[in-house]
């Protein structure tokens, strides 16, 4: 009987090994989206403190960087068309500098000076006011004026625009930049193992007690999860897709990722998923590659320095970089992906 008890207690031990690890999850609304934080091995009090810090950061960044509401960036946008020098809030400087680097690397496909075009399309309002797409003449005029961050001069804490059509909208990378700042803050608070997921775009640090974090990439056109990817150490997974914001008018669908070369929504791709260390880079690259389209995206990925990419074409085809092939595990049957080495 003692032998039997011993065997049973061993069995019990095995069962307890399967018990769920100590991951706690916390959710709140911020940044115009649902933010979800996961912590491994953090006690209740520390997790609440970290969550409160993250919530405060996201809410502050949202108001500071909102391009169309009164606030630091909103005020900058009021002053830019006047084309004179003015003092801008110091907190915007690192954001502006990083945005300019990424915009240059993307060959202007990631263009944070796109605010006026966003307003022409009505995507600055959430939800968008119902109505037709903008007058093609107005779109053509914007494209001809070609506002970009190259038109913005910085002189210490002063700035001016040489192009009256410049209106800053960091929407295509603010989420990534914000997630980076929150991760930085969490690390300062001693958090080593966490996921910060802002509306589906995330950065994960550390691990789950040695096991990697498992991220499911949602199928952009069907239900459920398309693929899974194990991340550990410090990695960001960002996806841009035509399904995130769009409207339909007279049977045509118009989404919110605008191509600054045409002034119209980018065509050819449904979604782009980028895995990179820095959230801001992954976010900006996902947008730029969406704009680059199904043939040209590898050149832009190379120029921006991202190696792990999955793109989904309008027809359902999947393209992957060789580095991404090694990372993904499919969760449903998919057509044979086309592997695109970076040039």
């Amino acid at each position, binding site marked *: *009987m003692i032998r*039997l*008890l011993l065997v*049973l207690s061993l*069995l019990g031990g095995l*069962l307890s090994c*399967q*018990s*769920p690890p100590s*991951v706690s999850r916390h*959710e*709140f*609304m911020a940044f*115009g*989206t*649902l933010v*979800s934080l*996961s912590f491994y091995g953090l006690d209740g009090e520390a997790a609440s403190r970290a969550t409160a810090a993250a919530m405060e950061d996201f809410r502050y960044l949202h108001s500071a960087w909102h391009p169309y509401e009164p606030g630091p960036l909103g005020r900058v946008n009021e002053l830019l068309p006047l084309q004179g020098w003015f003092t801008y809030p110091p907190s915007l400087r690192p954001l502006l500098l990083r945005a300019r680097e990424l915009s240059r690397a993307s060959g202007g496909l990631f263009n944070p000076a796109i605010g006026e075009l966003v307003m022409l399309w009505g995507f600055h309002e*959430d*939800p*968008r006011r*119902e109505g037709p797409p903008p007058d093609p003449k107005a779109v053509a005029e914007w494209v001809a004026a070609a506002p970009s961050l190259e038109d913005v001069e910085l002189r210490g804490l002063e700035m001016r625009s040489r192009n009256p059509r410049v209106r800053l909208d960091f929407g295509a990378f603010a989420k990534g930049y914000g997630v980076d700042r929150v991760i930085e803050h969490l690390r300062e608070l001693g958090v080593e193992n966490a*996921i910060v*997921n802002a*509306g*589906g*775009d*995330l950065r*994960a640090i550390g691990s*789950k007690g040695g096991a990697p*974090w*498992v*991220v*499911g*990439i*949602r199928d*952009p056109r*069907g*239900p*459920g*999860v398309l693929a*899974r990817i194990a991340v550990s150490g410090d990695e960001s*997974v*960002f*996806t841009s*897709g035509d*399904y995130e*914001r*769009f409207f339909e008018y007279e049977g045509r669908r118009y989404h919110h990722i605008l191509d600054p070369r045409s002034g119209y929504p980018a065509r050819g791709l449904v979604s782009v*998923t980028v895995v990179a260390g820095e959230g801001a880079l992954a976010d900006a690259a996902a947008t730029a590659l969406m704009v680059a389209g199904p043939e040209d995206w590898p050149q832009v990925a190379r120029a921006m320095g991202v190696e792990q990419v999955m793109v989904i074409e309008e027809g359902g085809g999947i393209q992957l970089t060789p580095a991404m092939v090694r990372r993904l595990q499919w969760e449903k049957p998919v057509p044979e992906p086309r592997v695109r080495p970076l040039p």
Partner: protein
Amino acid sequence: MTRRYGLTRGDRWVLSAALLALAAAWAALGGDEGGMALVTQEGRVVARLDLERPTRLTVDGPLGQTVLEVAEGRVRFLSSPCRGQLCVHAGWLSQGGAFVACLPNGVAVRIAARSERYDAINF
């Protein structure tokens, strides 16, 4: 004391108690598939739905009423007052960790399995 297979009556008693405990533990832990949907409104948990019990739930939000439907171990947004209808188009959720939110109306649904398949969902 009768002996069969070298087990005493005490052995058999311990064994059957252990088997019962094992069955209970298995049922409680569940499989990979989710067993419960967590419904939140503006980040606050408003309901926990047992996916094995077909039902409908109406959640009030700033835009109006969102209706959720549970059937055959799955849950979906049946109707929503939002304009985009992304939540409704997302279809059925069943896997642990799966998550859909209707941001305009502030309603989110997450499948909370005992052993979640994903730590996060990217979209």
